[in-house]
């Protein structure tokens, strides 16, 4: 710790802020992953607002800022919120979102009133409830043994350890009951108990984080890292790891940015977590918006490419030598930007070539086109012979289906319509090479 004491007071404080922030964020993010998976994110939101009256009552009764009564108060009110919400929903028939809204806003209102009412006894500022006093953790140090560290670290560290321990010990139970509650019940786990254990953890985490980072960062850290990690992986262990990474990253960069912009640290961390989510939502390789768009684009351009090849094959089949420019070819398969791109890509792959004014298939293009036309005509023949559709009704479905018939399927179709080498319109069904 020698090096630490050589730092300036500001730098020391910055490091403490980052440390406490990272611990809080991690504690929240770990529980949050389960909330996101179990679609209970908003219960996290509700509990973090609703524990306020529990805190105040604990303060009033214990007359101090000590950790234990605070935790007990928050725990009771947190569980009360979860239970009331569920009772209103299940027994009284209020829709779930409305019952949550009624319960947490009412409790929050009660909390604000209690704060004002016992203002002289409660050292709790409504503003700090919302955005916390993370900036000042470094000024409130306590000494334990030879070490001196922020008082906040004590409660936050306790909760972080508790969350980690519960997740490690009840890994299997949490996993199964989160993904398949019915299976968990048949295996004899008490899914309801797991629910309330999680709610208890949320309440404890919330209250430990309250003073330091404020309720808004708690909500952000409960939900955002978990949701971002959920976009990036399908494994629970990795999801927890990624969420922790985001939580710590938000703490480090958040404090730096907040110092630079001279603004509130907790708010900056929340906003940064949002940016991390945005990045995951856009850039995730499997579930990201860009990846989805790219997959959609790849599949549409493949269809257009195949349509172009099939069209050229049919012209060839009819021996039509027709001067065709690119715009004309593009118009023939629907027009627009996509066919032009498809033509360009066919040219680059060497599937088509320009012979004077005529577009021609190359050998590789022809064999692909043959397969496609074969799929098309086999499907038409199948629809007519086996399903009894009239011949003038089968072209449209075949133009859609042809792109999704692979080799094996083709063989099966060929077997099913073996007796006839012609399609219902009297054209040859090309043989595969």
């Amino acid at each position, binding site marked *: 710790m020698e090096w630490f004491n050589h730092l300036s007071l500001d730098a020391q404080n910055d490091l403490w802020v980052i440390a406490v922030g990272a611990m809080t964020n991690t504690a929240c993010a770990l529980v949050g992953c389960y909330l996101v998976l179990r679609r209970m994110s908003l219960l*996290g939101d509700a509990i973090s607002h609703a524990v306020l009256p529990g805190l105040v009552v604990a303060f009033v009764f214990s007359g101090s800022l000590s950790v234990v009564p605070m935790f007990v108060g928050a725990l009771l009110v947190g569980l009360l919120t979860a239970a009331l919400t569920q009772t209103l929903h299940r027994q009284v028939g209020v829709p779930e979102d409305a019952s949550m809204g009624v319960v947490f806003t009412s409790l929050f209102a009660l909390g604000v009133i209690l704060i*004002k009412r016992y203002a002289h006894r409660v050292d709790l500022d409504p503003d700090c409830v919302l955005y916390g006093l993370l900036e000042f953790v470094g000024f409130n140090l306590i000494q334990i043994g030879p070490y001196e560290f922020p008082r906040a670290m004590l409660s936050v560290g306790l909760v972080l350890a508790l969350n980690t321990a519960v997740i490690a010990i009840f890994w299997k139970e949490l996993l199964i009951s989160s993904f398949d509650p019915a299976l968990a019940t048949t295996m004899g786990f008490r899914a309801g108990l797991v629910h309330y254990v999680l709610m208890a953890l949320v309440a404890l985490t919330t209250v430990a984080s309250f003073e330091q980072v404020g309720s*808004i960062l708690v909500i952000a850290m409960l939900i955002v890292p978990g949701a971002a990690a959920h976009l990036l992986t399908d494994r629970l262990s990795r999801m927890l790891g990624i969420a922790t990474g985001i939580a710590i990253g938000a703490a480090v960069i958040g404090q730096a940015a907040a110092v630079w*912009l001279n603004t509130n640290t907790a*708010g900056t961390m929340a906003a940064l977590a949002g940016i991390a989510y945005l990045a995951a939502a856009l850039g995730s390789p499997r579930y990201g918006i860009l990846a989805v768009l790219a997959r959609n684009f790849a599949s549409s351009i493949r269809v257009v490419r195949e349509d172009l090849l099939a069209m050229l094959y049919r012209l060839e089949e009819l021996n039509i030598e027709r001067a065709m420019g690119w715009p004309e070819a593009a118009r023939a398969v629907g027009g627009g930007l996509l066919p032009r791109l498809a033509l360009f890509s066919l040219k680059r792959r060497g599937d088509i070539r320009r012979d004077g004014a005529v577009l021609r298939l190359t050998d590789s293009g022809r064999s692909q086109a043959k397969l496609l036309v074969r799929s098309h005509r086999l499907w038409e023949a199948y629809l007519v012979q086996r399903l009894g559709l009239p011949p003038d009704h089968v072209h449209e479905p075949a133009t859609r289906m042809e792109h999704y018939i692979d080799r094996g399927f083709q063989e099966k179709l060929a077997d099913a319509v073996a007796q006839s080498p012609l399609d219902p319109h009297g054209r040859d069904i090309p043989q595969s090479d």
Partner: protein
Amino acid sequence: MTYLTWIVAIGTSLLGCVAGVVGSYAVLRRRALAGDLLSHAALPGLCLAFLLLGGRHFLGMLGGAFVAGLAGVALVTFMCRWTRTKEDAALGIVLSTFFGAGIMLSSYIQNMPGGGAKAGLETYIYGQAAGMIREDIYLLAVVSVLVLVVLVLFHKEFKVFSFDPAFAQAQGWPTLTLDIAMMGSLTLVTVVGLPSVGVVLMAAMLIIPAAAARFWTDRLERMLVLSGVLGAVSGAIGSLISAGAVKGWLGFDPFGGDEGANLPTGPVIVLCSTTVFLVSVLLAPQRGLLARSWNYFRLRAKTADENLLRTLFECAEPRLPTLVTVPWDELLARRAWSRARLFWVVRRAGWRNLVRRAPGGVQLTQRGLEQARRLVRAHRLWEWFLIHGASIAPDHVDRDADSIEHLLGPDLIAELENRFIAQRDASNAAQVLPNSPHELNVP
């Protein structure tokens, strides 16, 4: 009662009324937490407008909040459609990160050199109803009238869209525009209410009166009116309580505030509507807890009576028309009742002259016999129907009939009876009461 108190009371009841009305649609469409989302998401809009306009320009800031709120709602819809994030997480993400950004901007503004602290943005978070002035009431009135006119003009469309969006779409109505119009009015009300009641409690003003009104009626029009009235009343009473008016009337302060401090207006209003909500939960005629417990209790009592009568009848059946006395122990063995419960059930049936105590046991009266015969007929007709109509094994039908016999209506019994008479076989030919399909173990 000062002039200012009245201003605040009028303002909060206007706000409560219009919030209750637009909130009803949100609650009905399972979008109750949209209000929470809107009020949190509006904060960065307020701050950005302050930065861009270079000062506290009231309407400009409301505009900024409006835009940011709508952007938040749009973002949630977009996330649900395009990513695997579910709606609850999407709401939470937008709410918390927008609010975080808002906090960041607002403390940036406050730390700005040159009087940024005058922005007064912090009043938007907890609200300051006591700071209402005459102009605020004009604004609230204009917004309320605007929103109510829109809701009345498009009442039919909103109604259909709320209950059956697919049908609205099939009618060819512009559902997206309707959705935006609904969300827009919700946003407008939220934004206008923010300075008075603050971020969290604005959500309460939207949700609680509507949730309370839902208990009393199944008709949308009544619910809208009721919710508006409840909102207005809570607003008025809450602001009067917080201003100490109650102390003035009663001569003492029932809430005993510290150091003469007035209670904050927003939270008191919310607790008023929570009280109304709780009263509704308890007392509402059909959905209320008391009504439901009473119905449940009545059903249980009826079931117990009927079970007693049927058991007595089955024991007495072989020696009819003589009414035998069934010993207490026999009854206890046949029903899973404690001795106390059995005595209670017998006593209740005795009051209505259905059974009478005889030495060592219980006996049906003539009146009880009539009723028991009807019950047993319902039970056996249902058993007969299950065996012949639904092909269920005779040893599996007793329990099913047990649970449904109390609920069979006269029409259904008549129908079963017709079928039975039409199809009865030789062994039952002369009977209206079918034989039991299984052993009854009569003593």
